[in-house]
């Protein structure tokens, strides 16, 4: 990175944070600190909801998914529009009617204190873990490729977000997210334009799509009923529906964003904004990855995209096995490139038979190329058994650093940090709010002043920030990073969602039945997760269904507990 890149990066990050602190310097009541001044329009809410969900992992890791596996990951979001419709129609009106600060207050009104605390505790557990991942994920990648110290990257980015989130509360999060999202989209669109410009001059966009499609990178929809496939239309629609319903309907980091709207209308339209735009947004990020694959068919790629790890491996490889694999990979790539040219020439000439033959040969060459890559990864791991061999997360950042002009590199790195800060801020804000409202004010100190609760909320936000920092400093992740976040969510979300669905739709089920049912269902999900190999998205459905069924059975077994299912506050 050059001086210009650092000026763009540091200027944009510090400028946005300082603006958030300055604009929210007068938030002294608990209501304005936790929910803002409730003047947010639908566009601000929509942007805030989008920025909260889209972490740095989305922009660093997703293009790598597109490069490696194609567009199939977009199916993960197929359940989201339906979930957002349900949240707008059922959850949001209920939260606004009861005027709650947190989603778990609703559980307390509907059931009892222990169910409220269980919901809040499950949220704090899974979101606390995810908060560590969202700060660790970009830091490990950026520090590796930029040569920065990992601990300093984590601490400096973590402290910045802690300061402005604790200082300004909910409004600071929403205000800064608006400008951070502008930096993110500015960076991603610039990267896509530069990528298209850098494709070979004689390669049309149709040719690029032909190559991507020929190598199966455009297979976006898979209608198969194979439960072992990670992403299918059905797992995305059903599992994704439950994941999204739980995330948007019951996760305080999202609930806090849309209950801060000026009216019910603004909140609903903000959610519908995301319901319409999320799938095309994810599609374009994945397409960027698929086009990166095409780009690297004409430009020699590294045999292993985590170049820092590769360099370390080379130093510990006295037999120069890694070096010989690099040469072997380059030779196969050159052969593949010629076959792709032959394939496209045949296509342009209208010779279907030659086109088919050249394409088949190019696919075979690609398999040989992947075999060399697999061999290289094994050889790299032989130099150090702890070496991570999944390099998908490094594909996009490698392209950014090697092929974008100075200034734009700074913009892209700023975009990654902006995404990290925006999602992290919403998480810390929600963790601080839930700890204050559902635990501290509810159990420890019930009759303090507003100013006391604001101070407590700031302290809890700071505390959660430090916990996330500690987790990030000691994290060691094996999965692709974006999958790791979704897996943690999927293990917990189904049960939390079930608490709310029982509250809304099974009015004869009481707090005791749903509380024990939730604990049993969560245990079941843990056991299944460690014993089955099905797509993790299904755990959202399994956890939810198990909790609902157990609740009905337990309520039938214990009979009426004297509590009506009507919400007490109504």
């Amino acid at each position, binding site marked *: 990175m050059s001086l210009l890149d650092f000026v763009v990066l540091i200027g944009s990050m510090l400028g946005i944070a300082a603006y958030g602190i300055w604009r929210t310097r007068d938030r002294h009541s608990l209501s304005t600190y936790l929910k803002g001044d409730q003047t947010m329009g639908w566009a601000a809410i929509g942007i805030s909801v989008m920025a909260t969900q889209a972490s740095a992992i989305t922009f660093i890791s997703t293009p790598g998914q597109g490069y490696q596996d194609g567009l199939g990951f*977009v199916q993960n979001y197929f359940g989201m529009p339906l979930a957002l419709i349900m949240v*707008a129609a059922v959850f949001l009106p209920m939260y606004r009617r009861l005027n709650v600060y947190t989603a778990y207050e609703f559980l*307390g009104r509907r059931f009892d*204190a222990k169910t409220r605390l269980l919901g809040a505790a499950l949220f704090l557990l899974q979101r606390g873990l995810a908060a560590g991942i969202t700060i660790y994920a970009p830091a490990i990648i950026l520090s590796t490729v930029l040569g920065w110290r990992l601990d300093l990257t984590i601490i400096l980015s973590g402290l910045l977000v802690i300061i402005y989130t604790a200082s300004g509360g909910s409004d600071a999060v929403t205000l800064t997210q608006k400008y951070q999202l502008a930096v993110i989209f500015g960076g991603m669109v610039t990267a896509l334009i530069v990528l298209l410009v850098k494709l070979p001059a004689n390669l049309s966009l149709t040719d690029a799509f032909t190559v991507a499609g*020929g190598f199966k990178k455009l297979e*976006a929809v898979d209608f198969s009923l194979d439960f072992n496939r990670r992403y299918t239309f059905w797992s995305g629609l059903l599992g994704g529906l439950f994941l999204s319903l739980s995330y948007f309907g019951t996760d305080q980091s999202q609930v806090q964003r849309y209950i801060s709207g000026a009216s019910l209308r603004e909140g609903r339209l903000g959610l519908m904004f995301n319901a319409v735009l999320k799938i095309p947004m994810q599609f374009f990020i994945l397409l960027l990855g698929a086009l990166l694959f095409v780009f690297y068919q004409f430009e020699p790629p590294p045999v292993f995209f985590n170049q820092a790890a590769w360099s370390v491996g080379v130093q510990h490889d006295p037999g120069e096995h890694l070096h010989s694999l690099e040469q072997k990979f380059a030779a196969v790539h050159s052969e593949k490139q010629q076959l792709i040219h032959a394939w496209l020439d045949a296509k342009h000439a209208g010779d279907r038979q030659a086109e088919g033959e050249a394409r088949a040969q190019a696919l075979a060459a690609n398999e040989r190329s992947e075999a060399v890559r697999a061999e290289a990864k094994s050889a790299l791991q032989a130099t150090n058994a702890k070496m991570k061999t999944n390099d998908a997360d490094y594909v996009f950042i490698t392209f950014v650093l090697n092929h974008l002009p100075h200034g734009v590199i700074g913009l892209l790195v700023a975009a990654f940090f902006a995404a990290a800060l925006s999602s992290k801020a919403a998480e810390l804000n929600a963790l601080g709010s839930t700890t204050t409202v559902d635990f501290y004010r509810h159990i420890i100190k019930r009759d303090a002043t507003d100013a006391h609760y604001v101070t407590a909320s700031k302290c809890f936000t700071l505390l959660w920030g430090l916990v996330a920092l500690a987790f990030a400093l000691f994290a060691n992740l094996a999965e692709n990073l974006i999958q790791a976040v979704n897996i943690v969510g999927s293990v917990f979300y189904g049960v939390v969602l079930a608490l709310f669905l029982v509250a809304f739709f099974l009015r004869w089920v009481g707090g005791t039945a749903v509380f024990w049912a939730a604990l049993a269902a969560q245990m079941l999900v843990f056991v299944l997760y460690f014993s089955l190999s099905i797509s993790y998205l299904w755990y959202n459905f399994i956890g939810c269904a198990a909790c609902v069924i157990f609740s009905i059975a337990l309520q039938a077994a214990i009979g009426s507990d004297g509590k009506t299912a009507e919400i007490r506050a109504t």
Partner: protein
Amino acid sequence: MMPPDHPIAAAEAPREPAETNNNEATGLPWLHTWRGVYIFVFGCFVLWVALLFALMTIFS
């Protein structure tokens, strides 16, 4: 076992009047009801899936 929630809820700070208007107008030019908005959003989802399927089929 913890006590029921409502005595504690009553001890918490008083809240502002709650919003109860579920029939609020959408304020959109062509979609006057929320049911219409939801159908439009669902239609967009179907359109996205159809376009993705078409892209996959054309370039497979």
